[in-house]
Each structure stands twice: as C-alpha cells, then as structure tokens.
C-alpha cells in the first residue's frame, strides 16, 4: 500500500536562526526528509574583488578583514603573502613568527566559533557557545593588544606586520597557552561522550573521501573525511616547516568527525603557538618598503591554510599602485559546493547540523 504524498518547498533563510548569516536554502521536503536542495547566495555581496582594484596594495588589507570576519588574521596573512610573492620580497623572521602565532590563534578562535554554533544548531541551548565565547574573548584581548582592534584587525602588512608586539603580549599569550588545553578538555568532557550529541552526529552527513576530494574541499571538512591534506604541511609557508604538529584526520567524514577534528586542531594550534614562542627571534617586524607599493607587472597566487580551508589570493599587477585584478579563493564557498550531496536524504534537524558542521562564513562566501 502506498500513501500518496506531496512534497513541499520550504525556504530556509536568509533570515533564519541557524543559517550562519544570510544563507538561503530552498529545500524540497517530503515530510521531514530532504529531496532536493537549492542554495541561494549573494545576499552579502559587497564586491570586495572589484573594490580591491581601486585601492592601494596596503589599503586592500582592510578589505580582507571583512571577508571571513571570524578569521581576519588569516585573510590578512594570505593577502600579504600574495603581495610579497608578487613583489618577490620576504618578511623578516620576527614578522613571520608573529604572523604564524596570529594565524594559529585565529584558527583557535574560528574553530571555537564554528564548534559553538554547531552545538547551538544541535540544540544545546547556547551553553557550549557561551563557554567558547569565554575563550574567544581572551584571544580577542590578545589581538587587541597587538592591533588595537577586536574583529577587523588589519594587523598584517605586505612585508611584515603593522607594529611590533607590545611588551605585555607575550606573558598574556603564555598564560593563555597554559590555560587553553584545560578548557579544551572541559569541552570534551561536556560534549564528547554526550549520548545525544553522538546519536545526532555519528554517521550523519557522511562525506566520503573521494567525493570530498572531487569537490575540492579543504580544511577541517576535508580532513574529517580522512584526507591528510593541509597546506601547512603540503606547501609550508611562514615558519610552518620549522614547527612540529600533527594533522588530525577523521575516519568516515560525518558530523562527529568534523567536530572531533576541530577540537583536536585547536590543540595542535596551541602546540604551534608554543613552539613559535620559544623560537621567536628579536629583530625588525617589517621589511623596509615604500609607502606606496608598486609591484612589477605579473601575477601571483599565494594560499594559506585558513581555519576553514585553503584561502588564496590571486593578484594580477599592471605595475600601478592598485592590482589589475584580485581574485579570492574562499574556502567557505567551495566547501559548500557539495551541500546537495550531503543533505539529500536527511531530515530537517540533520540539515541544520550538517550545514553547521561545515562551518562556513557568509562574509567569505558572498565576498
């Protein structure tokens, strides 16, 4: 006996409590089961790539802050590396260490937010999120010491960083690096073996290894599917070749793996930060460069392993003070490309958690 059913289309977003910004999904439901998904982007489009063509190379740093506003330092770093590659220069050693520390702190902060909102989507009423905000606050204090800003830092410059670290920074960072593992253990104790969390995440939203590679995913979402691919290892930039760290890799690529991989990556980031603190030399924090940068004609692409994946800037220079073209490889955007494959067949509640576990940021998706 078959029951005649009629699917309904539900529009989720752009205003919805758990679409992580202004993301919109048109979903064809049969009962509560998803049959088809049509993501709609562009509600936050600000034309960053086009705006970059009218800014000087230094001014563009401020635009990068606003891409993934939860990981501004990583964006700064990727852009600055790209300009440096274009100009054929390198930042001084101390600047490299500072930038590595900042990028890793940013990764911790971004993962904290990613995990917090993922758990919020699971229905843990803001409690884990607030715990994670507590630690993110400490990282923001550190960034504030260095850059004076808490969200949009604009701290890095082509050829170095804007300013040297203030004297109170290193003690504060040491304190943070000592405290943070305890907090990560706390999250684990609270959540890792929670029966409901496990039933909600295990085996849900499985992204097979081959599919993840074919979808050109990157970052924790790719590593959770069992692919040990990390630009910090594969194409080391800054000082990553001099520090030791491990790549946590998931087993089957479900929500639970993505959750665990992010938890573990925070520990590895702390490891990197501690090694950088030990190795950091004294010296200049910025290369001696003119106020207006005029890179030679040509193009360059530099990429970093951002918190969400491979974040790359492709710059074409025509020899003037502004780039001729600036293209951004936004990891959030590309990680969303397999959304349909991941969502079809799951229920509304799973849809929310799968989307949350990808940890994307609309500022970066829409650029």
């Amino acid at each position, binding site marked *: 006996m078959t029951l005649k059913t009629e699917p309904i289309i539900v529009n989720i977003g752009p205003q919805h409590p758990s679409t992580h910004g202004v993301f919109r999904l048109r979903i064809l439901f049969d009962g509560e089961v998803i049959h088809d998904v049509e993501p709609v982007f562009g509600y936050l489009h600000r034309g960053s790539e086009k705006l970059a063509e009218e800014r000087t190379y230094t001014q563009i740093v401020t635009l990068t802050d606003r891409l993934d506003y939860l990981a501004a330092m990583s964006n700064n770093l990727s852009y600055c590396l790209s300009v440096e590659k274009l100009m054929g220069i390198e930042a001084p050693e101390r600047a490299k260490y500072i930038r590595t520390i900042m990028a890793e702190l940013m990764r911790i902060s971004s993962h904290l937010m990613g995990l917090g909102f993922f758990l919020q989507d699971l*229905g843990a009423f803001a409690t884990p999120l607030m*715990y994670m905000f*507590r630690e993110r606050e400490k990282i923001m204090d550190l960034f504030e010491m260095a850059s004076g800003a808490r969200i949009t830092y604009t701290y890095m410059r082509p050829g170095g960083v804007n300013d040297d670290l203030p004297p109170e920074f290193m003690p504060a960072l040491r304190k943070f690096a000592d405290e943070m593992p305890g907090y990560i253990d706390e999250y684990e104790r609270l959540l890792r073996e929670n029966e409901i969390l496990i039933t*909600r995440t295990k085996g849900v939203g499985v992204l097979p290894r081959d599919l993840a590679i074919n979808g050109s995913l990157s970052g924790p979402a790719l590593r959770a599917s069992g692919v040990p691919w*990390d630009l910090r290892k594969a194409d080391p930039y800054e000082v990553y070749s001099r520090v030791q760290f*491990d790549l946590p890799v998931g087993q089957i690529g479900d929500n639970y793996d993505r959750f665990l991989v992010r938890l573990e990556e925070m520990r590895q980031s702390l490891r990197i930060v501690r090694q950088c603190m030990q190795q950091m030399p004294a010296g200049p924090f910025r290369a001696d460069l003119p106020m207006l940068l005029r890179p030679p004609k040509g193009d360059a692409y530099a990429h970093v392993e951002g918190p969400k994946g491979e974040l790359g800037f492709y710059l074409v220079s025509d020899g003037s003070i502004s780039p001729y073209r600036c293209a951004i490889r936004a990891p959030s955007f590309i990680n969303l490309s397999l959304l349909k494959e991941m969502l079809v067949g799951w229920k509304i*509640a799973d849809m929310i958690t799968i989307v949350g576990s990808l940890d994307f940021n609309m500022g970066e998706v829409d650029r």
Partner: protein
Amino acid sequence: MAVSALATGCQPPGFFDGQNLWHEWVVNFFPRIGDSICRGMGGHADGGPPNWLIYLVLGFLGSLIVVNIAALGVPFVVLLERKLLGRFQNRIGPNRVGPFGLLQPVADALKLMTKEDITPAAADKIVFALAPLAFAIPIILMFAPIPWADHASLANLDIGILWVIAVTTAAEAGIFMAGWSSNNKYSLFGAMRAVALLVSYEIPLVLSLLGVVLLAGTLNLSEIVLDQRFAPNILWQPLGFFVFIIAVSAELNRAPFDQLEAESELVSGFHTEYSGMKWAMVQLGEYAALIGFSAIIATLFLSGWKGPLWIPGYIWLVTKMAFILCAFIWVRATIPRMRIDQIMAFGWKFLLPLSIINIFATAAEVIAFPDALPYWLIPINIAFAGACVVGMAKLLGFQPKTRKIVIPGRPVIGDDTPGRIVPLMRGGN
C-alpha cells in the same frame, strides 16, 4: 457531586475548634480563608445564604487565587530561567531592571502589551486568534486539583490526576490550531511534530503514573499526598519517577524534547507567527504547564505539601517545585536536542517497556504487601530501577561510542617529521 467539588468548601463545623493559635492560621492558611469567608457570609447558620451562593463565591475566589498563581508565577519562572541559564552559561542574566533584575517580568509584560499584534495576511484569522486561548486555558485548568496544603486544593477532585492528564492533552488542540492557522510551513512542521510527540509520550506518561495510583489506591491528589506518610513515592517508585519526569519534559516541550519549537530548526515552531499578547498567551501556557507539572511531580513523587519539619505545607510544596524547576532549567542548559525520529524511538522502545515493567513490579508489590510496603523494599526498588534502566539501554544498544581521531602513521605530504599515532582522545571504538 462534582459541582460541590469545585469550591474550596466550608469546612465542617468544628474542624478548627480549639486551635486559635496564630501558627494554626499560618499552617492552614488556605482552608482558614475559605472557612472565614464561609462563616462571614453566614454559612451553616439557619437563614444564611443558600449553599450554592457560598460555593459560587468561594469557587470564584479560589479560582482567582489559583489563576493568579499560574499567571503571576509565570513571569518569575521566566526570570528564574533566564537568571539560571545565565549562570550556567557564564553570563549574569537580567540584572538591569530593579534590584537583581527582579522587575524584569514587569518590563517584559509592558513590552509585550505594547507590541504590535500581527496577524499574517494569509492566516485563518479566527482560529489564529483563538489558538493561544485554546492552548493556555486547559493548562490553567490543570491547577484545580493540586493540593497546596492540607485541605487546600481548589477542587478536591476524585479523579484528580486523570483530570490533569486530560486537560493538558486537550491543550494540544491549541498547538494544532496555532500551527495550522498561521499558514506557515515552520508552524506546520511544529504542529506535526507536536502530534507525533504527544502520541508517543502520553502513553509512558500515563503508565508511569499508574504505579503511584496503585500504591495509593486512588486518583485523588490530596489522598495520594496523604498516602505518602512514611516516605515519598520516589523511594517506592524510582522507575516510575524516572519515566514520568522524562515523559513530562516531552509533554512540556522542554529540552531535549523541544522539537516543536526547535529554534535552530523551525525558528519557533508552532508559534512562529505570533507576536504581542497572543505570543504572551502561548508563553503563559507553556510556563504555566511547567509550574503545574512541577507541582504534580512534587505531589505524586515527593510527598507534595508534606515535609519532615514544622513548616506550612504550601511552603514545602513551593520549595519542592523550585527544585524541580531548577532541574528542568539545568537540563535545558546542558543537553542538546534529539532528532524527532530518535525521540520517537526513545519513547516507544525505551520508556514504554520501562513503564510497563514498573506497573507489573508495583502490582506485585502491592499484592504481596497489601497493608503497607516494608521499608526494606526501598533499596530493592532503587536497585531494580537502576538495573531496568541500564538493562534496557544495553538491550537497545545505547552505549556511548566515541571515536578516535587518526593522526596518520605515515609521513604526511610535505612533512619532514613523521606523523605519529597518538592516543589523543580517551575512550574506545
């Protein structure tokens, strides 16, 4: 006669005779008030007003008190929830309005009253307007048989607990009305989930009550309290308590069973389209049900208004209710939400068998010891309940299985230091 049960009732003459101490007034506050009004009107005297008038006046005054316990209690429970959630979440919670934020409920009420009352253009307007009432009124009705102290229930119904279950089930109609008439797909999903949840959890809810009813031999809430002379029912009925409290949180749509509201999924579920005072009515219903059910839990399992110390019964009851409310808030702050099919499976496969086991075990105990259960049954009952819960969980394969995160043993691409396999996470699998 049922009509007579609706009034607080004049106490029979001589009920309080010879006890005119002030503390007697404090302890028997509610019956005293009823009795005084009754006597003041000249009840029991020849030529006094007819009985129905006394019943009417007393019933009206009693209803006024009980409705206000619900309606005025709700804002403060909301405040308690916000404060406690704040504490659980490393925040302070509301503290701007009045001392310790105590006037926050007043501010909230003013805000809600002045808000625009929006009715969606495509809504079924009459049903949309009636739905909050259909939701809130039955829930306030559930307060009628709750015994606040000795001889102090508004309606000492013979069918007390059945009445509570019946009226709270009727409130579900309000949820459908809201969900359907809003003409919103989120609301519709919320209403559909409400149906599924109600059908699944009503059964273990009622069945887990039967143990208490078997012990007391009555459905009357006042008598169930009086029956718990020696020990609260939670000690005789640990399994029933366990099932009941879970089924109640499903009935109340509290986390982790808040599927029909499920903020991160369905925005607000069945009341997505409500605003202003209509929303306030929905909220009133939800939190009144929370208060009412904590009173029911306290009455059925924690010996209600009775306490070991010489403290007025209503204070005991309110204290126990406060503990239960805090427990509900604690759970809400801690546990993620389950998926609807998992909740169904949990209700049917886990709670229902447990509640049936509980009925059989209790019936056997009652048959074996018809007069009163011996105290040595308490540890046996607790151990039995634990064994049943664990055994059922094992039978269904609910085991927390965590997973290790692999750090590949082979050199990772571009890595000069070989990776290692580290037992980074505790736990098996």
